[in-house]
């Protein structure tokens, strides 16, 4: 993975020193909150309902064991012993004191981490496929491109004060695991008929108040043109994007209002202007970056022990079947560690759990970890002969839940338990749904089903693209939950359809249970997933399960 050079280290030290001075001036009363707020936001520091919140960037979700150990240290020393992994592959601390934040940032800098551009109207932390570098179905590792974009966008003078934030994701596989089509801009690494590698560029995706699926603006951008092309897109939007209304400021609205062809033409024109200014330094940099991401030395070893354990231990088998994915190297597996133990807060890991994960990465995982936008942690390179040891260690840390992709593997944003923008809670809804389906012992039977919950229209919990989406609202002073169905976060992305009237806080879990039971009755067999049934049958039959009374009244 990428290692900071002297320039990066010096840059970060300088930024942290600046911010320390700003915090001191704020505490001394020499800066007002109005003056300080943009400065703290530039450094990832928010003020939430009960405390400050520090959002630390984990670029494209990749980190090593020393970094994970540092995240544990922050949780223990300056927070309440845990951290929250987010849908942008970042981590948030919910309880830091303002006066401690400079020390937290210094601790992060020691392992090449920071909180820059995790907030504000800038280009945010670049996300990527969380199986990058390990997936059997990828064309190449997308992280060098993500790192190139990160370096180009960090402190980019033209893009520090835009009309709104701008989110970029990168993927390189057949399957889209990075929700590419819900990003302002997405880069998909592709191969053309001549066998050359290049980039398909999508723009105008996004969730929030007006959800939109990203559209292809360019089918093939040559390798050496990538940064100039992205810069042209951001630059065109930065110039013509709306600044009169925050809800219409994202590029999805610009694309919608101007039309894709108009934007494409403007980008082409801008690209022609700026392309000559990219004189090849970026390509040299890219070559350097690539060297940082060389694949680990995969080893060869017998896997008999694994097979014996798989056949002998049903719990281990269930975990293997549910939480492992195909690796590109023979004898290896990708392990997704569930941070969704039934009844716990999705995405929350304690300091001890983080240390266990760091230790496992060191011992069995070529020192690599990933955070997924689904709020789980990944050990991307584990040899099968080590899986029993990994499983045993995970069990001891209560990290062995076998539920990846199942009904209890829920995405939930912090909602009104923490977030100042929330209109309702999301965490307890997720906890109750997971607990309920665990009691029913049905989830393996139900199969692949993604529930995603947001505590307000901003949609950090990706509810629009959940097979079942839940949106918490404030209806006349009480929490109310709206359900959408049929959303899809993958290469076949779709925005879910609103099912009907919302449910009160104490009605939402029973409603979900009715809905899922309905699916079990409607499906053609266990091989047909919830989403497939929904696509085959449409909304109507599912609605009948959600609103049985309306059905009875109509009859």
């Amino acid at each position, binding site marked *: 993975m990428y290692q900071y050079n002297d320039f990066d280290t010096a840059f970060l030290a300088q930024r942290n020193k600046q911010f320390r001075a700003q915090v001191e001036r704020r505490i001394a009363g020499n800066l007002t909150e109005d003056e300080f707020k943009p400065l703290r936001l530039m450094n990832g520091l928010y003020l939430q309902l009960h405390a400050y919140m520090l959002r630390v960037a984990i670029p494209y979700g990749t980190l090593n064991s020393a970094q994970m150990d540092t995240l544990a240290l922050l949780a223990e020393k300056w927070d309440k012993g845990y951290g929250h992994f987010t849908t942008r592959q970042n981590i948030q601390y919910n309880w830091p004191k303002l006066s401690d934040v400079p020390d937290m940032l210094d601790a992060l800098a020691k392992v090449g981490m920071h909180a820059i551009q995790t907030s504000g109207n800038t280009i945010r932390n670049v996300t990527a496929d969380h199986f990058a570098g390990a997936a059997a179905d990828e064309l190449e590792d997308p992280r060098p491109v993500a790192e190139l974009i990160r370096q180009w966008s960090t402190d980019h003078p033209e893009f520090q004060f835009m009309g709104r934030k701008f989110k970029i994701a990168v993927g390189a596989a057949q399957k889209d695991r990075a929700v590419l089509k819900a990003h302002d801009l997405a880069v998909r690494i592709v191969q053309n008929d001549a066998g050359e590698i290049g980039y398909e560029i999508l723009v105008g995706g996004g969730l929030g108040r007006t959800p939109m699926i990203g559209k292809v603006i360019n089918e093939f951008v040559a390798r050496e043109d990538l940064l100039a092309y992205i810069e042209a897109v951001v630059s065109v939007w930065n110039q013509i994007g709306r600044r009169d209304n925050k809800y219409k400021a994202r590029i999805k609205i610009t694309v919608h209002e101007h039309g894709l062809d108009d934007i494409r033409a403007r980008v082409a024109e801008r690209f022609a202007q700026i392309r000559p200014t990219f004189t090849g330094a970026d390509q040299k940099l890219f070559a350097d970056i690539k060297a940082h991401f060389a694949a680990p030395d995969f080893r060869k070893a017998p896997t008999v022990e694994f097979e014996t354990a798989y056949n002998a231990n049903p719990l281990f088998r269930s975990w293997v079947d549910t939480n492992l994915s195909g690796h590109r190297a023979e004898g290896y597996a990708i392990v997704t560690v569930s941070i969704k133990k039934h009844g716990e807060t999705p995405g*929350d890991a304690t300091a001890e759990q983080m240390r266990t994960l760091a230790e496992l990465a060191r011992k069995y995982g070529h020192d690599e970890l990933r955070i997924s936008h689904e709020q789980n942690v990944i050990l991307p390179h584990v040899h099968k002969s080590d899986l029993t040891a990994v499983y045993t260690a995970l069990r001891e840390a209560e990290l062995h839940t076998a539920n990846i992709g199942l009904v209890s593997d829920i995405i939930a944003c912090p909602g009104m338990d923490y977030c100042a923008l929330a209109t309702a809670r999301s965490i307890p809804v997720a906890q109750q749904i997971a607990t309920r389906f665990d009691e029913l012992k049905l989830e393996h039977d139900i199969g692949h089903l993604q529930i995603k919950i947001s505590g307000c229209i901003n949609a950090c919990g990706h509810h629009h693209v959940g097979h079942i989406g839940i949106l918490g609202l404030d209806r006349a002073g009480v929490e109310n939950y709206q359900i959408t169905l049929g959303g899809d976060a993958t290469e076949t992305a779709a925005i879910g359809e609103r099912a009907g009237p919302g449910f009160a806080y104490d009605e939402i879990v029973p409603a979900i249970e009715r809905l899922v039971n309905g699916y079990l009755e409607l499906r053609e067999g266990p091989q047909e997933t919830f989403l497939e049934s929904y696509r085959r049958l449409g909304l109507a039959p599912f609605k009948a399960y959600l609103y049985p009374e309306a059905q009875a009244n109509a009859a």
Partner: protein
Amino acid sequence: MPRAFTPKVVTANALIEGDVIYLTSQDSWTREMCDAELMTDEAHAQLRLLEASQQVDVVVGAYLADATASDKGPQPTHFREEFRRTGPSNYFHGKQAVASQDGSTL
């Protein structure tokens, strides 16, 4: 027709800790909503908010929150303020975890 003024408290977050605080009638800040000053007069409430907002080295983001009178002091009327004065529902953290002590003013 202008809406009738409903009783309010001045609330904010503390500058250093970031936690929820309320303005008392004694001009101090308390961490307990029940000790806050409940204001029923709009002009007075606006004035108190202005005074509170000027304390830039103590508080952040002061605003008026709806509250009702009770024999235990002001109580929230909206669930958001209920969470703010209690803490999150997934962990026993925040206000609910801090044993309420007398004189927990800033």
